[in-house]
């Protein structure tokens, strides 16, 4: 029996490709003006008004401790649903660009190697090779429910498929 296939939304941050399960995605919107919040963590840019709801926006570049990039009208916000400790909340994440929705068969997703990898394994659901390019499947609940900046490790070992 072939395993199941799930749909993932792919996006890029700093030329790296990431994927999140499409079920987590509520919608993708163009850049809308952000009401800044000053008192909060650095990567929490502020809040936006999404059809009468107040949604916080997190800048993924800052979350991953990458240099900040000014928002352009190319910037997109992906509105995702995350399971917090006490509630399900909607949060916008600012990413460089959204690419496409792809089907990834589950047996193509490998467990994250323990060492020498970009993130601590708890932030990753796995890694998949797609058309000779690596996609990191993020565990958004784990990433967004921490207050810390998720440190990327510099000694990235290129893995050839």
């Amino acid at each position, binding site marked *: 029996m072939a395993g199941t296939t799930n749909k993932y939304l792919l996006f890029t941050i700093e030329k790296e490709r990431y994927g999140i399960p499409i079920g987590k995605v509520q919608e993708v919107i163009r850049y809308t003006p952000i*009401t*800044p*919040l*000053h*008192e*909060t*963590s650095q990567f*929490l840019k502020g*809040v*936006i*008004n999404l059809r*009468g*709801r*107040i*949604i*916080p926006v997190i800048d993924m570049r800052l979350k991953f401790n990458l240099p900040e990039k000014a928002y352009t009208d190319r910037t997109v916000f992906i509105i995702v649903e995350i399971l*917090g*400790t*006490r*509630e399900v*909340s*909607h*949060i916008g994440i600012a990413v460089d660009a959204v690419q496409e929705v792809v089907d990834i068969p589950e047996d193509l997703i490998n467990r994250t190697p323990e060492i020498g990898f970009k993130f601590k394994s708890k932030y990753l659901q796995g890694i998949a090779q797609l058309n000779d390019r690596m996609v990191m499947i993020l565990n958004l609940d784990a990433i*967004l*429910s921490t*207050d810390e900046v998720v440190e990327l490790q510099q000694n990235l070992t290129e893995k050839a498929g």
Partner: protein
Amino acid sequence: MKDPTTVLIEKIQELTTSLSSYEQGDLLGAADIQDRIGQLCTFLEGKKSLEKLHSLVAHMRPLAWALAQPSYEEEALRLLQELVEGLELFITGRISGKSYGERIRTQEPLIRKYEKLFRTTQSSRTEKGNGHVPTPGEGGILNGFSEKASTTPEIEKTNTPPSTAPSFRTEEKPVRHGEPSYPTNYFDAIIEDRKLLEQFHTEAQEHLEEAQATLVELEYDGTNKELLHTIFRNFHTIKGSSAFLGLKNIEETAHSIEDLLAIVRDGKLILTKELIDIIFFGMELLKNLLDIMAAHEYQNRSMVSSFRMVNIYPYIRLLKKIKEEYRYKKIGEILEEEGKIAPAILKEILKKQESSEKKLGEIIIEEQAARPEDVVAALKKQSDIANRLKRSAIVKVSNEKLNTLIDIVGELVINQSMLKQELRQLHLTETAERSISQLETITTTIKNLVLSMGMVPIAEIFNKLRVVARNTAEELGKNVYLEVRGEDTELDRNVIETIYDPLLHLIRNSIDHGIEDGKTREERGKNRLGKIILSAEHKGSGIEIIVQDDGQGIDPERVLQKAVEKGIIKKEDTATLSERDIYNLLFLPGFSTADQVTSVSGRGVGLDVVKKNLDSIHGRVEVHSEMGKGTCFTIKLPLTLAIIEGFVTRVGDNKYVFPFSSIEEIKVVPPEELYLSENKEEAMIFHRGIHMPVIFSHRVFREPQKNSKEQLLTLIFNFDHSHYCVVVDELIGKQEIVIKSISQNILKDCRFFSGGTIFGDGSIGFVVDMQGFLEALK
């Protein structure tokens, strides 16, 4: 969620209500009372620990039945009230089982008397001994209409009395005395035609079934003319055909129900739930009579002997009473009834009225036929009856719809206030101005109406807490009396749901840690009986709920000691804490002062749950305690979660909304009035004889601050008995603000926001929580 004791208390309270409304002349209540006692009985049945109660409640049944007998009515009511009141006191733990037992014992002879009466009117076996004849006393209403155990012809096959009979039923003997007295020739007209009788039986059954279905629908839609006509026709037909066949008892019963329905149909009487129950009761009675016919295979003689056993008169009398009571009476009638005017004079006056334009009351006064004040009193009575007919019906709406409605109305309020601001800037004609004000009035009215729909009286949870208090006290072997005040205070449904747990914790805590055991209390010169006051009242724009005990109080020293032991604070910091700070330590997770972990509390999870729950609805809790005297927890809650009166300001780049209720005034502070501290960090002003700190809100919100060389725009706050002067950049104005929740991710960083709001132009503002705002400065 609902433990048996809670259910029991609810049931008893319902019964108390029915009794008092019956006393106040709501005669429909009789069936209601019988019904409720029946329900109580069913509820208690088979519960081992409640056996005593069960037999007691079973003893109440004859009393409830006696309510429908005019000659016993008063005494039975008094007795019932006595028993039920005692029962409630006992269940809620205000008197002991022993003293309740004593109360009952004094009434025993009377109770016996009614039992006897009840038994003698109960049916017995017929002479032939084939078939048990049910009566409305035991079937029908007492089992809530659903069980037909005692009304089906099945009884022919068995000789056992129906299981629904109260426990004091003795072995049935054919009781022949005390039979209802039908005139000897009453049943003479019944025709001897088996076929016709059988036909009638089938037809009547069908009509009753249809009536039953219709009645169920009428419960939801009591004014539906279509349905009323249907059910009226059912009884009308039964009446007609039974009259034709000479079944006088069936005819009279159906006739009285038909009359009642006629009044309802003409809109002179509202079909309340009680009334529906009464009609159901009558239908059971008719069914019983029809069953008798079938059971005796339509043989006249045996049928009639059973018919004689079933007394239809109490029911018919009850209906008559209702019709009298609920009819819209004319002034003249009322005066005549009360003996304020002689019938002969009234006749004359009525004649006069026919040829005059004047109202009857006026003529009566002119003619000096009755005293003016009597006429006024009669008018009042008349309008009372009319008002009773206009009882407001209740419509059920789903929670979801109501919440959506509240949201939408919130939007409406925002949009309206935006529109007003926009339009005021254009120079409008007077008519346009008027329209805007009108629009505002309408919007506000809608808002208040919608908000009040979401309000429920706090009694809902106070009643549950009574039980909690009693059970906890029992568990711990303490004597505690819970005094409840302000039960009818109304607040938001969502708020009520959230505060139940905190209050439960506080009450259990008070009983466990606060109230000492009886012996210790006596030694300390206190009343053996511990007292807890639970009260709710409106204060300002919010609600204040107090849980106060007269126990041993909380020792601040011990709290400190514990906090240090648990590593919550450092020893060297203890000296700097005020008493209030010390008590606030109680609300930290993992804190508990109980020396041993009891089953009730002492695991240190109680009070932090209290705080957490209250935080989620923008409520606050404070403790005041006096050693040896007691402890008082004060909970302050917003009235509603949805909309607040806010004062909109701009600080730096953003809009911030302060709660309008704590703002005293707006003040422009010239630079020379500002007293700066040595390091230029802190400032103060002297205003209206008070020194108050100046707070630059930019520092809290981390907004860029402009040069403060010029005069400062400030808001003077009075919060928690202290004054503060808060500097902002711009005042935008007072607005009704719909609070939108902001994800917890943000709020844990910004304790000074209770939420956000969206203005009419789509921009976002932040709603400030004063408590958090002031704490952020520390």
